[in-house]
């Protein structure tokens, strides 16, 4: 047991700490605040406190727990709301009311709840690490697969079907004359990636329901994406949309150093909204972590790693998991603050030199893998992180370090957001390196995908080039075919890329609808070009009722779209050719 020697904000130095190890969790002072050892010098420990240190005195006790910072894994995670240290916020609320007080403990998984366990192996079976020994129906959407923890290999001596709490033994495994007890509850240290058998390149589309992602800049299962943008450009809304509609098995939403009201909004909407595919409440496939900006700064990092460890755990069951983190900049700022206290050599803009590697130790945990154990299965963790660059200037260190790690960039633009073009994702500077990874996925469903996508991006690119001329001579002085190009570019922007998160239908657009929508616009372009060639004036095309009809495609429900698109196309053939004849 040690004693506090120094307190300076979240930095604590304790002496008499012989026998401790780096990253060991300690309890600080009379209130038992959670801290983590970040350095040892002789018997003196340098500790970062995950809770507020106001009012601490020198000489107060510091006790090592012998554990490194770990998460509890087991049934009860799904639908839960945790702080950065995996304290259950609902339990805290019941215990101490609506305000957070430091030092109060709240176990992550409920201890009294009984879960219905159905074995998948029987006595006498040989089992090893990662094998699924049974399942618990955690929610309607998530079957919690109980896996043999690392380091255990042997024969099942006994396994108990029935209702169990997370701490009761459910199985006994004989291993070299020893018998190991297994429970539904496991622990895993947050900074250590969970093992897998083999890692693959990301593949297959992570369907998000957002057209500019799915069709233009796709995210692949197991991929890594970054969403940088100035304040109010739509990072949080984009991540919330991902967490709502991504067609994955489970989503994890990490609110890291951001707003409390936003968390309240997310939580309440997930209690009401339904998954478009299964019709079940979204909270049945979601875990929330909330370490808001007024909660302890050091725990921001913990919230990120707690989240990604949970993601890997569900991946290991054979699920596709998406983790969104809002905002990684707040975590980087926490690193900067702690590094300053530790008087480390500051790097660019005061961030520590290890910021880049710390960020990548998080993003690197995304991936698609062949899981350990039997039965054989694949799982994936996809990660999307928001970045909040000061002054919306992407040249700053957090954005730049992140761009070195991720393979998809959704760059949010202040000018678009100011015009209320949402999502304010720039079609000129965003990119995805997963185009090849999702090619097969798309080609199976939409053979013309690559061409349509490239065609539309080209129109937008040409529009940007024309823009300078327009500013000099005005739009009316352009040749007719350029005027048509501007019209079509505008249709792509407003009638396809713009997608309100709050529109009852358009909030989620199925990939099939997205594809048809864009094809309709490109078809319009083809027909209109023919009309121009045949001598029709641009005014005839601009005033065609089809322009308005196309702008209303968003309102058409996903299920009806194919039928309605057919009607639209035949009308278009008729209308736009009639126009041609009539000219």
């Amino acid at each position: 047991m040690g004693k506090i020697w120094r307190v300076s904000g979240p930095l604590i130095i304790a002496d008499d700490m012989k026998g401790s190890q780096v990253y060991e969790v300690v309890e600080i002072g009379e209130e038992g605040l959670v801290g983590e050892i970040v350095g040892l010098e002789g018997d003196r420990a340098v500790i970062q406190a995950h809770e507020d240190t106001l009012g601490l005195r020198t000489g107060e006790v510091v006790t090592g727990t012998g554990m490194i910072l770990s998460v509890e894994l087991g049934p009860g995670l799904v639908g839960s709301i945790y702080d950065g240290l995996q304290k259950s916020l609902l339990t805290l609320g019941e215990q101490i009311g609506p305000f957070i007080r430091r030092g109060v403990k709240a176990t992550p998984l409920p201890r009294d709840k009984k879960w219905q366990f159905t074995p998948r192996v029987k006595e006498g079976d040989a089992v090893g690490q990662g094998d699924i020994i049974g399942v618990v129906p955690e929610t309607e959407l998530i079957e919690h697969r109980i896996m043999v923890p690392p380091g255990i290999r042997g024969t099942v001596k006994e396994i108990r079907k029935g209702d169990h709490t997370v701490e009761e033994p459910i199985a006994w495994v004989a291993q070299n004359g020893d018998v190991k007890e297994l429970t539904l509850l496991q622990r895993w240290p947050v900074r250590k990636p969970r093992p897998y058998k083999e890692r693959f390149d990301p593949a297959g589309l992570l369907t998000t329901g957002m057209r500019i992602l799915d069709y233009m800049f796709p995210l692949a299962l197991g991929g890594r994406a970054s969403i940088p943008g100035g304040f109010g450009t739509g990072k949080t809304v984009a991540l919330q949309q991902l967490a709502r509609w991504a067609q994955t098995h489970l989503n994890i939403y990490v609110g890291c150093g951001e707003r409390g009201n936003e968390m309240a909004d997310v939580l309440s909407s997930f209690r009401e909204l339904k998954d478009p595919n299964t019709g079940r409440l979204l909270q049945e496939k979601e875990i929330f972590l909330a370490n808001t900006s007024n909660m302890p700064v050091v725990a921001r990092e913990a919230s990120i790693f707690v989240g990604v460890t949970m993601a890997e755990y569900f991946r290991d069951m054979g699920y596709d998991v998406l983790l969104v983190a809002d905002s990684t900049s707040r975590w980087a700022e926490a690193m900067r603050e702690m590094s300053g206290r530790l008087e480390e050599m500051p790097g660019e803009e005061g961030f520590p030199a290890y910021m880049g590697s710390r960020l990548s130790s998080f993003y690197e945990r995304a991936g698609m893998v062949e899981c350990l154990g039997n039965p054989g299965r694949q799982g994936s963790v996809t990660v999307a992180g928001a970045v909040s660059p000061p002054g919306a200037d992407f040249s700053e260190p957090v954005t730049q370090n992140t761009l070195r790690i991720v393979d998809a960039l959704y760059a949010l633009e202040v000018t678009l957001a100011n015009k209320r073009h949402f999502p304010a994702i720039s079609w000129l500077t965003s990119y995805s390196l997963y185009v090849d990874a999702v090619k097969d996925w798309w080609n199976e469903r939409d053979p013309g995908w690559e061409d349509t996508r490239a065609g539309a991006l080209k129109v937008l690119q040409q529009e940007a080039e024309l823009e300078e001329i327009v500013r000099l001579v005005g739009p009316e002085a352009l040749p007719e075919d350029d005027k048509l190009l501007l019209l079509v570019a505008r249709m792509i922007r407003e009638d396809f890329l713009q997608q309100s998160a709050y529109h009852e239908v358009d909030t989620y657009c199925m990939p099939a609808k997205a594809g048809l929508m864009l094809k309709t616009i490109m078809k319009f372009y083809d027909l209109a070009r023919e009309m121009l060639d045949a001598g029709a004036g641009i005014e005839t095309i601009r005033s065609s009722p089809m322009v308005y009809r196309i702008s209303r495609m968003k309102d058409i429900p996903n299920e009806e779209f194919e039928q309605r698109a057919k009607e639209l196309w035949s009308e278009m053939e008729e209308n736009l050719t009639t126009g041609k004849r009539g000219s």
Partner: protein
Amino acid sequence: MEFSSLYVKEGRAINKAKGSLLVAESIPGVRFNEIVDVQLASGEVKSGQAIDISKEAIVVQVFGGVSEVDLIGSRIRYKGETLRLPVSMDILGRVFNGMGDPIEGGPRVIPEEYLDINGEPINPAMRQPPAEFIETGISAIDGLNALVRGQKLPIFSASGLPHNRIVAQLIRQATVKGREEAFALVFGAIGVSYDDASFFMRNLERTGALERTVAFINTASDAVIERISTPRLALTAAEYLAWRHNMHVLVILTDMTNYCEALRELSSMREEIPSRRGYPGYMYTDLATMYERAGMISGREGSVTIMPILTMPDDDITHPIPDLTGYITEGQIVLSRNLERKGVYPPIDVFLSLSRMMKEGIGPGKTREDHNNVFMQSYAAYAEGSYLREISTIIGAEALSERDNIYLRNADEFETKFIAQGEWEKRTVEETLDIGWRLFSALPQEDLKLIKEDFIKKYLPERQE
């Protein structure tokens, strides 16, 4: 400010003084961040804070201008307490300074309790999502950037712009439809001129709001360090009224730029590594711990709504002060020098302004069913018109098509009819939306693609010539 405990410890041996920092010999039992009294050699007493404690030494930051010479040989009394505000319902109608002492000559408040001025974070899982529309009677706010109870919505202003008048109008007019509830105002003035402070106080007096107001005033001539405590005192009073007495509290803080400057000054005295433009790296967190005190709590009646005012240095919205604020608050109302020059009052730049809580607060049963559509279509039309205005300055309006000219005129009308209104004019939200529809009626109807077709049938007036 008062302290509930007696002085507990006294130390003297002072080794070093640097700037306003004192390094004192360590004595056991001193608490991190506790408040101390420093008695200078001259006998004068200053307050300070133990910002770094260890068994080797205690670092005390002394508040208020002192020189190193003053500090040598001074004595430190440790009080064992962090800053607390004495509260009871008697604070209503009173005016305090930045240390929480009454300044209008009235008696001391007999406290019901002492509250830590830093407050406690609201458990995010226990928050109630804010959704009650506050009608301010100002179209640019109600129609396009609606404010709701429990929101934190700042005003980004610049020197010489009428932010005080707008806020005064908002205080005069703001109501929540169909509700007559316990309402209070907390006013925190931080480093402002005497004139600015008295403008507000006179206004409150005139509208009879003074007895429902608690004011904390730190003027430009008061101690800089009290700029750090003033907003915290105001928020502590607000929380007391909201969470203990179920009141709906609006907190006005002006001018938060002065607060940030004080924070920078303090940080440089502590020789911390500065972040952008000399402001401390923790400014985001520091501001957030204050602004996050806005909100509603499930199962409770009251609310805390915060409207900070700040002036953007050099009119620059990317300056760290507005920038970090924007990253914390739930939107911002930005004032424009351009509109002000054109004679538009209130000169609210609706492109740069945003209310993130708007969508929860509007719609059927709250404002009107068409509100969201009118909002989106107005932006689209005004954005188009403003873009064409830019182009037309080079090529002239004649070179634009007839359709483009319609949008050009529409943007002008939007500014003069929708955004502009009288300082004493209170518009209902329906009136605001109807102005929007009248402007739409001049546009080609097939361009109204952000509005539900049903609403077009129901609300679009006959085309005006």
